[in-house]
């Protein structure tokens, strides 16, 4: 029997922002450029347009 011993992952998060635009204006610009709106962060005045989380390495060890 084996059990995962070490897992390495990469997580990527991409945000669009522009302090000169309202969030609504920014959302329109983001959509007009063909990006997908994944999340709107009203407090941070930014829009998430990219997200990936994937394992890149899993090492197993006997138990």
């Amino acid at each position: 029997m084996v059990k995962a011993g070490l897992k390495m992952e990469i997580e990527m998060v991409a945000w669009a922002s522009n302090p000169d635009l309202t969030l609504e204006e920014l959302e329109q610009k983001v959509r007009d450029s063909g990006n997908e709106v994944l999340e709107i962060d009203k407090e941070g005045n930014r829009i998430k347009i990219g997200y990936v989380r994937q394992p890149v390495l899993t090492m197993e060890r006997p138990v």
Partner: protein
Amino acid sequence: MASIIVNNGLQRIGTQASQSTSGAGPTYNAARHIQTMSVDDSTVAFAAGDTALNTGGAVTNEYDAALTSAPVRSGQTHPHIMTIPTGSGNFTIRRIALHDDTAANVLVGSTTLVAGVDGQTLTKTSDFTMTITLNLLYTSV
């Protein structure tokens, strides 16, 4: 779409942690830590043997910059953050990568590639700034 730490990147991470020397390839060097992030428009997937952005094929558009600040570790998570200003990187971003040299030394053909994410479609325009975080997470279970 895939995420990968290339062989050279694994060697970099290991040699920095253990201060290893070797007859060839990355060896411990205090100056050669992950400090630059790049974006480019190549549709070629990263492979384990890649040492540079153009190992798998020519890269048309590329933008790189120093990390916005030194990574601040939280637990086993190491965050790397870059900011692309409105006037830069305005193309369809397909790949994001980490490099183990200064931004001045990172070119599409430089042997600096550590890790990357490919297969993305992020359209950067001059209408906004883009901030990208690439976390490396190490979990022992």
